[in-house]
């Protein structure tokens, strides 16, 4: 935005350090009064070069690095990466390990949505709601912690299985947590739907139509809020999602309110999935028997080939494209993050709205800058 602007307008740089988002990015907004004439996003403030780093790590070491792509969905990142390697090497995952993976991934989805939803409320000035959702998130985090041993970066999945079994008494703990969480989600929904100020700030703001959303390449809750039931878990089932009964949560309106509503519904759906998994989970080994894969992973050489594997991240479609040349390190890894197109779609959405709605719309997209920059 170097061009000359008329004196009635001004350029405001929101960021790179701005309370709007966890993680820095810059939004150069050209304002006329309070409304936005034009905007542009400047990325890369935390570009880390993960793709280059992955090329120089062995497959096993890569797991620790992919954890740090998006800090809110570390398990799904791992699943995409590990699934990629398993497809290339032709490893079968035992059923019990698959169920455990599904459980951790859905837990991760719940905590991510809780954070995104609460943070969104705090963007509207409703700080107490943020506190409430984080309070619930801590409970879910404790569940994840008890399985994986870490809060954010888990390093839990291994090629062919998972590192550890479910801890003893996990089912009771989960039941206890979900009981409270269901109540709390109901109360959040009630607060959201009855609060006039909240409705005034969200209904009809930042509307995406299905056609435009598809054109922008948006996926995940922002797309499902427009009524398109695009969900990798249904369309291209991985792990045991085929055997599990769940709905793809959609809304019609495509505005900010619908996106938050989709997240609320998805949390309920995730809890339902986990409960099914806990009922159905078979006993058995965590790693394929008769192979060297195990907790002490061998140095792997993956046969040459190329593969594209995608999973459903809390924010949308997460994909890894991996090229192997037969050595112990991947030749090229491309990470397709869900937030990348979502963030790219912000400037067209922001045209003509007021400054206060920037945070409303950007927050409802639940963007994760770290993953965009990689």
């Amino acid at each position, binding site marked *: 935005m170097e061009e000359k602007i008329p004196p009635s307008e001004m350029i405001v740089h929101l960021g790179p*350090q*701005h*309370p709007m988002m966890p993680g820095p990015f810059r939004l150069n907004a050209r304002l006329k009064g309070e409304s936005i004439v034009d905007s542009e996003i400047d990325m890369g403030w*935390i570009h880390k070069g*993960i793709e280059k780093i992955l090329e120089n790590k062995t497959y096993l070491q890569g797991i*620790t690095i992919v954890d740090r792509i998006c800090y809110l969905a570390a398990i799904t990142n791992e699943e995409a990466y590990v699934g990629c390697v398993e497809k290339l090497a032709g490893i079968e995952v035992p059923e019990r390990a698959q169920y455990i993976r599904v459980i951790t991934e859905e837990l991760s989805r719940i905590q991510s949505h809780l954070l995104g939803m609460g943070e969104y409320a705090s963007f509207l000035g409703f700080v107490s709601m943020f506190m409430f959702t984080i309070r619930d998130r801590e409970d879910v985090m404790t569940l994840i912690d008890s399985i994986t041993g870490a809060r954010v970066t888990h390093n839990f999945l291994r090629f062919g299985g998972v590192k550890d079994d479910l801890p003893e008494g996990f089912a009771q703990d989960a039941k206890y947590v979900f009981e409270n969480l269901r109540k709390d989600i109901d109360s959040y929904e009630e607060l959201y739907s009855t609060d006039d100020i909240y409705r005034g700030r969200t209904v009809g703001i930042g509307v995406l139509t299905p056609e435009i959303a598809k054109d922008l390449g948006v996926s995940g809750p922002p797309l499902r809020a427009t009524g398109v039931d695009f969900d990798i878990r249904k369309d291209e089932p991985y792990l045991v999602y085929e055997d599990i009964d769940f709905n793809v949560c959609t809304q019609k309106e495509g505005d900010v309110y619908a996106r938050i509503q989709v997240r609320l519904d998805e949390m309920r759906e995730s809890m339902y999935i986990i409960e099914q998994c806990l009922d159905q989970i078979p006993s058995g080994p965590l790693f394929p028997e008769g192979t060297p894969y195990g907790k002490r992973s061998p140095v792997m050489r993956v046969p040459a080939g190329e593969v594209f594997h995608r999973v459903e991240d809390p924010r949308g479609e997460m994909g890894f494209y991996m090229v192997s040349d037969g050595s112990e390190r991947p030749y090229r890894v491309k990470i397709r993050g869900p937030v990348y197109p979502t963030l790219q779609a912000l400037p067209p959405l922001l045209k003509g709205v007021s400054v206060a709605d920037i945070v409303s719309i950007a927050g409802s997209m639940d963007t994760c800058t770290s993953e965009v920059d990689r």
Partner: protein
Amino acid sequence: MDEVEEREKVEPKIFDKIGYDDIPGVVMTDTSAVSDFLKKTKVQNVLNWGRKNSLWFMVNAMGCCGVELLATGMAHYDTDRFGIIPRNSPRHADVLIISGYVTKKYLPALKRIWDQMPAPKWVICFGDCAISGGPFYESYSTHQNIDEVFPVDVFVPGCPPRCEALIQAFVELQKKIEAKKDKGTDY
């Protein structure tokens, strides 16, 4: 009522007589004689008590640790117990928490935030990325050795550290201020 009239009388004189930089009623000095004197007395202890009990930190979430940073301010860990509250403007902050990878592109911005903060100010390196580059220490894009750029007071290793570690870091910083060994103030 009298105050208003008085100011109206005085104001034209200011513009005529004194330069733009001198404001009546505001003493502006270049020396730090007063603070130097205070540092030798017991008053400094009182000042340090005030400072250590109100360490407002800058909300500057930069990476994985940023999530833990957010969570630390919330109900389960509650930094407010120590008088530590998040501030969004660097002008109001005392503590800069470097909570993630500092890239070549971001370093100038981070330095600018640091320059905008009023002294005395402190830095906490939260997480491996801030201390040494963490998993990205070889990357073409990141800037390593942040402790050569900023005067770091407390190092919190972990990737990411738990929320308790950040609170412990604040406690360590308080201890350091109390012991008069911190780098934010010259003793």
